[in-house]
């Protein structure tokens, strides 16, 4: 199967045509290539037999042979931990990324193609991490974890315009990572501060970067980005426009309704509709109602509404069809915060607590 294409390939990519060869040889005054070689290569080192490397293999055969060799490996579970974990790579990833023939067969099978393939794989991976986490930037490399962390530190240092000297590293990182970072910080003249994740916010000086690890070195999963937002709401009847109807339609008395709202953890799924409005959930099954038959033309700013399994906060006066059960004096969307106008971001956890009308107006001021 490969025979013809192989010839083709050689013709296209390697060496000269017969005609060119002839011209060159006649210029040099030789009749054949062998004559030229015999004349130039010392007889002692001239290789006269054929190379004993056998026939070429097809891709399939090659892979099969390599696999049969690698089968001789005995693979045991390891329990080293701290960065050395067993992994499972799904076949679809193996075929399309790691062993994608595109990396090593296309054009010519020489090293830069492989490097290019590896680069593309890394780019895809880090883009996927950005998509998954919502981070502004992510990086992947084939370096070991410690060196990767040190490289990241170096990058932050180079980009740091204020020439700060302090690097924070969480003691939840692998010990080897901490050691590498310590070593690499020396020639840069940086000071490494090691502490708990929580200590990061207690550092008063400017830092170059903070290095956290997820999951932690002992495998514990914390979420360093998770910020619990505690939002005060007033549930006075002046604000709770729909509470009577909610109470009636859910067959719960008003107190029972609020039991399901106040001091409960909600998760922010998304923001939108009006600027910065958080969609929080899930509410208890017993207080899930539909939207209003005809949406209100004006829902007051700060209103807290419920519908289906969600609560939300109307960050601005707007039309809306949710069942309004309270109002918060807190500014959820602040356009003057150029970089970060929203208080509650997707992924945050939010809890409401009750305040009196007096407190409401006080905060509002």
């Amino acid at each position, binding site marked *: 199967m490969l025979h013809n294409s192989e010839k083709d390939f050689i013709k296209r990519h390697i060496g000269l045509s017969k005609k060119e060869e002839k011209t060159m040889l006649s210029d040099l005054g030789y009749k054949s290539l062998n004559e030229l070689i015999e004349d130039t290569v010392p007889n002692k080192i001239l290789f006269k037999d054929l190379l004993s490397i056998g026939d070429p293999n097809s891709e399939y055969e090659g892979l099969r042979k390599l696999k049969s060799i690698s089968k001789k490996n005995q693979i045991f579970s390891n329990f080293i931990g701290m960065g050395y974990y067993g992994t499972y790579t799904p076949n679809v990833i193996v075929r399309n990324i790691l062993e994608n023939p595109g990396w090593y067969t296309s054009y010519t099978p020489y090293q830069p193609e492989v490097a290019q393939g590896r680069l593309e794989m890394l780019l895809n991976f880090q883009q996927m991490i950005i998509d998954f986490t919502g981070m502004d930037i992510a990086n992947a490399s084939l370096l070991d974890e410690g060196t990767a962390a040190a490289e990241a530190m170096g990058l932050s240092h180079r980009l740091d315009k204020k020439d700060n000297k302090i690097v924070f590293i969480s003691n939840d990182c692998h010990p080897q990572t901490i050691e590498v970072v310590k070593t690499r910080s020396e020639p840069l003249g940086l000071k490494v501060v090691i502490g708990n994740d929580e200590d990061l916010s207690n550092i008063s000086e400017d830092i170059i970067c903070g290095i956290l690890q997820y999951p932690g070195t002992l495998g514990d999963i914390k979420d360093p980005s998770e910020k619990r937002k505690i939002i005060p709401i007033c549930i006075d009847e002046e604000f709770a426009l729909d509470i009577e109807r909610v109470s009636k339609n859910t067959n719960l008395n008003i107190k029972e309704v609020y039991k399901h709202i106040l001091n409960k953890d909600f998760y922010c799924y*998304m*923001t*939108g*509709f*009006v*600027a*910065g*409005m958080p*969609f929080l959930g899930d509410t208890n099954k017993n207080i899930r109602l*539909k*939207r*209003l*038959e*005809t*949406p209100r*033309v004006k829902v007051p700013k700060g209103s807290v509404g419920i*519908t*289906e399994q*969600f609560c939300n906060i109307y*960050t*601005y*006066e*707007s*039309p*809306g*069809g949710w069942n309004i059960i309270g109002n918060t004096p807190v500014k959820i*969307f602040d*356009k003057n915060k150029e970089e970060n*106008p*929203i208080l509650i971001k997707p992924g945050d956890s939010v809890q409401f607590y009750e305040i009196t009308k007096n407190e409401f107006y006080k905060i509002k001021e």
Partner: protein
Amino acid sequence: MSIEVIRPGLNTTFQDRGRLNFYHLGIPFSGAMDTRNFLITNKLVGNDQNDAVIEFALQGPKLKIKQNNINCVVTGNVNFTFKKNSKIYNGECYKTFDLNNNDEIDIISTNNSMYGYFSISGGFKIEKKWNSYSTHLRSNLGPNKGNKIVGNDLLQLNKKVKSIIKKRVDYSNTKIEFIRVIKGTNFDYFSKESQKSFFESQYQVTNLTDRMGMRLDGNKLNNIKSENIKSEGLIKGVIQVPPDGKPIIMLSDHGTIGGYPKIGVIISADYDKIVQLPPMSKIKFKMIDVTSAEKLFKLYSMETKIILDQI
């Protein structure tokens, strides 16, 4: 170097082509409602195609010019007059005219339409908010601190442009018989009869219409599946149907997320037309497929380009 606002009009704001990249926070694109007229306005006064213009609805502003040699234009279907050297002239849309210090322009009303545009050569001296001159009143974003233009405001102008070329274009805002829509993602939520009557009966634009949305009155659409869906993203032109069965069309300042079923979406080629329908207008919908909608939009954009090229 300014223009004094004697009367602001009903809903007068600065707009450009819209504010991109903030949908995830709940901030819609906004921008001029009628894109074609917006583009024509900028082209006529020789400004950049994304420069800010003044958009007004129904009743426009009355302005007093505080500078000599202002080259300005009004577009849309608009009745206006201007006072030059104490003489009053009837204004003509799509034709630039110049005014001097203490001259006045009185944009009396739009004529059987909603929005009109006013701009001057060189443009207004205003600041971008998040890379746009568009005003989004709901979240107070944009020039003028995100507010409407109000009486006694002084609108600052950019530096005077040196050469002013008088320009005009023949353009009339035509009405179309049908507003064309493609099927919405929840089209099957409505009974067969309602699907039919949506396209056969007439709907009336109610007075609950603004830059955010347009509520319609007409045959009640019968939802047979679920009156609510999980809240999801919206685009302008989407027709949502709340449980009362009366469609609401999402317009440029719409909420970015909605939880009412969507029966259809106004095609982009007809968007400039639908926003111009004043309350009490009667409309009829016609269903077309996505491929035709795309073709029509290409055609519409080409048409716009031809008009702009004439200027």
